[in-house]
């Protein structure tokens, strides 16, 4: 079971819910489960998010594996100039 933390605008979109317990071994499984658990996140997930796994930030690369017990944050997709 992963303890997933929602950050910033994602937390806001989830109605203030900051953490979600999810069973997932990859980013794809995480995102599917997250949308099922918190449907109000669907627009953010459609636009793209970033996922931090043990401090390393990934885009929503579906195949990326997540080890059991990893520290996982779902963040807004980064942009820049």
């Amino acid at each position: 079971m992963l303890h997933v933390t929602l950050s910033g605008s994602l937390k806001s979109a989830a109605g203030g819910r900051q953490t979600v317990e999810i069973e997932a071994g990859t980013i794809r499984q995480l995102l599917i489960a997250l949308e099922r658990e918190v449907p109000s996140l669907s627009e953010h997930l459609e636009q793209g998010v970033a996922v931090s796994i043990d401090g390393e930030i990934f885009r929503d690369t579906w195949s990326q594996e997540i080890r059991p017990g990893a520290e996982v944050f779902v963040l807004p997709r980064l942009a820049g100039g």
Partner: protein
Amino acid sequence: MSLDHDSVSPNRDFKVVGSRPVRPDGVDKVTGRAKYGADLSAPDMLIAKILRSPHAHARIKSIDTSKAVALPGVKGVVTAADFGSVRRSLRAVLENCMAQSKALYEGHAVAAIAAVNGEIADAALELIRVDYEVLAHVTDVEAAMAEDAPLLHEDMITQGIDPAPIKPSNIAQFLEIGHGDVAKGFAAADAVIERSFKTEATHQGYIEPQACLASVAQDGMAELWCCTQGHFVVRDTCAQLCDIDASRLRVTASEIGGGFGGKTTVFIEPLALMLSKKSGRPVKIVMSRDEVFKATGPTSSTMMKVRIGATKDGRITAGAAELCYQGGAFPGAPVEFGAMSAFACYDLENLHVSGYDVVVNRPRQAAYRAPGAPMSTFAVESVVDEMAARLGLDPVNFRLKNASSSGSKSAYGPKFGIIGLAETLRAAKAHPHYTAPLKLGQGRGIACGFWFNFGGQTSVSMNLQMDGTVNLSLGTPDIGGSRASMCLMAAEELGIAYDKVRAIIADTASLGYNDTSEGSRVTFSAGMATIAAARDAVAKLCQRAALIWDIPVDAVVWENGEAKPSGANAGEFDPLSLADIAAKAGNTGGPIAGHSEINADGAGVSFATHMVDSEVDQETGQVKILRYTVVQDAGKAIHPSYVEGQFQGGAAQGIGWALNEEYIYGADGRMQNAGFLDYRLPVASDLPMIDTVIIEVANPGHPYGVRGVGETSIVPPLAAVANSVSAAAGVRLTHLPMSPPRVLQAIDAAKLAAK
């Protein structure tokens, strides 16, 4: 993906990486041969001009183009009615390119005309009749948040508040980040400082205005030449807005005369394509500087509050901030990045930052180098500076005591990996600048800054020619010297000289998709793809050598640009150079090429420390920058001159933001200073030589240790200059830009208060 980094250590002894060869685009640029957005023409080309709203806020009751269309020489007109419906995420992009039912800011495009020349197009614009119902407007972020403010979008309900508000407002979103218990943290503090800050909107100030040439043939095949930071994104956006198959729209990126984030979206390109589609002729649009100011993205103006508590011995016990950013007429102000960056330099147990994304009657904001971070960092670093002084602590030591390090929990949640903030602070303290004497009336300021950096989708193709030279096709427009950096990395991997590699920016039909050149991602991700493409080519070179020698491929190694037998058992053969093998390509299997298509992950965050000395004229409030030093972690500087250039460029733009640059609006909601005479960019004579120190704390996520450097350098200067000017003026400056009237006002107010 992440590359396998085991075979290359960031600490390896590089042969060409880290050298400073002549830039490959230099001759073209200094001789005027380089082709920018406006430099291309086509037979039968039309010139298009855009009619823009003179009102800050107005309902468009009707548009009559009949007289304009009847003017001889006019070949096409487009309005919002020519564009179909688009998916949700592109609606604001389209509405910003062409007003729908309302003009939301002065300069908002209402119609576009294509004619046989610019004079006729201008005359035709005069003949378009727009019936406006002028509405009350609001351009200030604080005023826009008021209960009775004029509404830009009558159906906009603030996101992120539970339960959702019943009434619409100009606040698009509310968000919070943080951890710990700030009330407990402030209670444990010996000193608490709270201040309010404001920053004004600034433009990216690129020298080259947006320009493009579009051509849509009768069979639907389309081409677009434009000045952009991301031609693949331009293609995909325009294809959807103009209903063209992506494969039928070939976009070529011109040379770019500056972007800084402002050229990461479309403004005129869909209009040119649609006009070409309707007229059947090529259409060129070149924006004027007035249009650039009024209709392309500046950054947000802001209103902020920051509160910091610390113990007597200099440990920060809590940090809190409230950030209000306006993003122009559409949601999307970079307040979340501002919130995530504000306290990133500090390892805090108790932190809370809230943010408001606010719409106003101004042009839609576009990214500007580290979008959102310079403003919030200005506010936080100003209070950090004041706290150090209040506690009687050295400002560098105070920051070092609280600095984020590997394993620190970032403000936005995850723990940092290997980072180099402390290294930049120590290097700043050891720099002669830090202890140089100051005269009366002069002040020294210091500030730190952070930016994320990211990777993203990247394709690179490498073709080996029969004479042993190499062509490298990249899809990330070169906005900061990336062609030179990619050539260096390709040469390093292949083991050949830098000048044997030539890089070009390929068009969208010639290479796989590439994300935009933004987010300080190019040297990191295109570099990673270049290295992977080179390794792909090396593997093929080894296969060809094995074929030539008639030995197994695993008995061949690649060393110093040559294929060699892996050991005595492999056989006795003279090494084969890349040129030797390439010359035999026709006999050994055909052309040799290397490819890489990746989604680059593993970008390392970057930190910087800036130091600046200034002098304030107490009579006029004018500020003179005397000395400036940038210290920044680059991970690994591939081409140190370009890295230094990025450091200096960020500092120069930050100095302009801090001292002079500002969108000034009249009571009518119209911009008063849409030109470089009145919008004061710093020029060379305003600036001292900006000294640089490159710190290299390798990013373990890149085979050579690269971190992005393009954006972090604009994060600290607002605060560093404010801290310096505050020290010189003897009063804390909290409103940017610190133009002479504002500085004088602050000095006078302080004198009055002292009486």
